[in-house]
């Protein structure tokens, strides 16, 4: 997604919602990770205006807040697609052929790992291990695991998500 | 008495605010602080309901 498109989305953010999330944690700087987790759960990502707001309310410099945010893989600074594809990059999946699965998905969607399709239909991500090693190679689309994949099965699976 | 935390009779005083040191042993082997067939049976009923086989309960 382009930066302009993100900026446009960021205009309609309701900061009151953020306040109600922060409220119980005011004055507890060590709780910044749970705050970011809850805020992201609400908005789907961490919009810039929200980050600035948290910074002010929690008295944490914005730079430090971004320092924490960008350190952890869970936090996203850009909106994500309606469907999240997580390709398991665990060892078992790797040796059972997950690179071939990623390649096929990237071909079909024309995005690379970490990116979102322009129509916001899919976001493609990698995850260290889903823990379904017996079903390797595995991808998760939203909460549905799809295991024992071969590259030729990928297209049918993706077609099932709008 | 549906769960171990429920008192078997008025003699059992264990709650989180008024703890009894024998509570854990008492769950399966009790009652410890008094003698009552009836109260022992109440505990047995709880274990028998879920015990998978004779080796399930470990004292």
């Amino acid at each position, binding site marked *: 997604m382009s930066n302009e498109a993100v900026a446009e989305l960021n205009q309609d953010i309701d900061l009151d919602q953020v306040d109600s999330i922060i409220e119980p944690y005011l004055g507890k700087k*060590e*709780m*910044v*990770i*749970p705050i*970011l*987790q809850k805020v992201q759960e609400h908005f789907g990502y961490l919009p810039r205006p929200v980050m600035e707001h948290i910074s002010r309310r929690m008295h944490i410099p914005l730079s430090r807040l971004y*320092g*924490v945010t960008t*350190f*952890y*893989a*869970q936090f996203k600074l850009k909106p994500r697609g309606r469907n999240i594809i997580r390709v398991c*990059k*665990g*060892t*078992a999946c*790797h*040796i*059972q*052929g997950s690179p*071939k699965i990623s*390649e096929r998905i990237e071909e079909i969607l024309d995005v690379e790992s970490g990116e979102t399709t322009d129509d916001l239909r899919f976001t493609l991500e990698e995850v*260290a*291990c*889903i*823990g*379904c*090693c*017996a*079903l*390797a190679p*595995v991808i998760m689309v939203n909460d549905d*695991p799809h295991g024992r994949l*071969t*590259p*030729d099965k990928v297209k049918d699976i993706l077609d099932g998500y709008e | 008495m549906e769960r*171990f*935390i429920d008192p078997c009779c008025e003699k059992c005083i264990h709650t*989180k605010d008024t*703890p*009894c*040191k024998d*509570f*854990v*042993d008492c*769950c*399966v082997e009790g009652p410890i602080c008094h003698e009552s067939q009836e109260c022992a049976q109440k505990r047995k009923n*709880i*274990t*028998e*309901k*879920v*015990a*998978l*086989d004779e080796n*399930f*309960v*470990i*004292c």
Partner: protein
Amino acid sequence: MYEKHIMICGATGCLSSGSNQIAETLKEELEKQGVIDKYRLVMGGCPGFCEVGPIIVIYPDEVFYCRLKPKDMAELVEQHLIGGEIVERLLYKGPDVDAPARFYDTIPFYSKQKFNVLRNSGVIDPESIDEYIMRGGYRALRRALQMDSQAICDEVKDAGLRGRGGAGFPTGVKWGFTNKAPGPKKYIVCNADEGDPGAFMDRSILEGDPHAILEGMLIAGKACGADEGYIYCRAEYPLAIRRLKTAIQQAEEYGLLGSNILDSGFNFKMNIKEGAGAFVCGEETALLASIEGKRGMPRPRPPFPAQVGVFGKPTTINNVETLANIPLIVKEGGAAEYAKVGTEGSKGTKVFALAGKVRNTGLVEVPMGITIEEIIFDVGGGIQGGREFKAVQAGGPSGGCIPHDLINLPIDYDSLTKAGAIMGSGGLVVMDDRTCMVDLAKYFLSFTQKESCGKCTPCREGTKRMLEILERITEGEGKPEDLDTLDSLAHSIKDSSLCGLGQTCPNPVLTTIRYFRHEYEEHINEGYCRSGICKPLFQYLIDQDNCTGCRACVRVCPVEAIKGEKKEPHEIIQELCTRCGSCIEKCRQDCILITRVGSEADVSN
């Protein structure tokens, strides 16, 4: 009273192969027959055998049904539950048994296992504290509360328990350090940030037996003089977090957490922290920073966490599996019993996540000292498709590869370290002749390179350089001096990094060079990847003598690079082939060959 108990595996592996639908259909069937009250249905912990999931075990008969589909439920209800006759069709079958097998006694997968840590997994309802207590739960806590702190540390030391998180430091000694540290406020931290790709034993324990962790932490608290605990758990494990929260709530209600526990004057408060996805947070000082809401970066030791830990207070950090062992040791007579299992230097059992190209994948708990051969061939049932065993990777990105020649190596802390691997958290990934060892080293390094926090230059820059070299080699542009450069970089990184991540991340590269040097040399000097993984270094050819012309490969090829008539041997057009591997997966005759680039059709491998 129930007639029978139906334990449905509700762990992540089986859930993803559909155990939820199984449970629902089963419930519907029981309702339809009007017998639902006679049976107790539990979505329980993991019996370990993920390969054949979804799994149902029926007690007291101890019958193990596997590979279930919703449509099997009607038969299971009518024939077994109501009729009392085992449904043979749904029992375990495999090349390692002569006849369909029932359970522990006859399924080879279970034959060499010993359940210590997984003693309750799949047997109790993980959301019931009563069932945990029936299984002897919280008795060790009760005993510990009457003991002197140092006496508890000594018992754990005598039992020979070593930390299951990786390095294998004696747990009792670690507790002793925190116990002796001055100050009234101390913490116990449970490291449940299981980030090793390919390892999921901690998750299974958390999901299957959460009270064991709480009890372990409480005993640690008593032994260390701590009154507050943190469980730092990966956010990617939502079910584990939910079960932990339920367990904490129950323990508080029962007066087993909180103040004046069991009238002993001992207080303990439990908190859960959800990790946010950073592998380095498995490192103890990084984990502490993360609990404090900071970037999870390690710091130099000393001071060790036992002196300066969370919020600057003395802290003991233990791994999930370590804590799950504690109640067994501290119970009456437990320490001596515990020390009977295992080897001289490594006591007890270890849980492994057995995965990769082994036939029986899943979670296994075996006594320390079992050999690699026993684990792969007896428990694991050998290699998938009867292919050749090449190596096993132990310990994840910090571990190393153990080659076929060391198949008789006993699995314990010291033997593994000697072989260049580590126990690590317990991932065992089995590899066959279609796994490229150079690619594997590259895979692990790309993982650690991404996860390096960037604090120590040798780790941040060195892993990047090593990865670049490995990438070159797998692309066919390796140089003869590369191996020496890799070796020198690896040792610099090991010697000069602050934390475990940097100190161990070159292991996969070092061990693959040590045991599979010829594969590296083949890549570099001959431009050939014999495993058919590194794309520029091989080509597929169709074995003209054995191809039956079934057209399966022609249909599956996404770029139409295979031509040939039905019942005539097919041929691959090398200019079009992208080596995606779809054909080799599909071919039932095993006649797609991996050959050197430029070889002709008659060359067999």
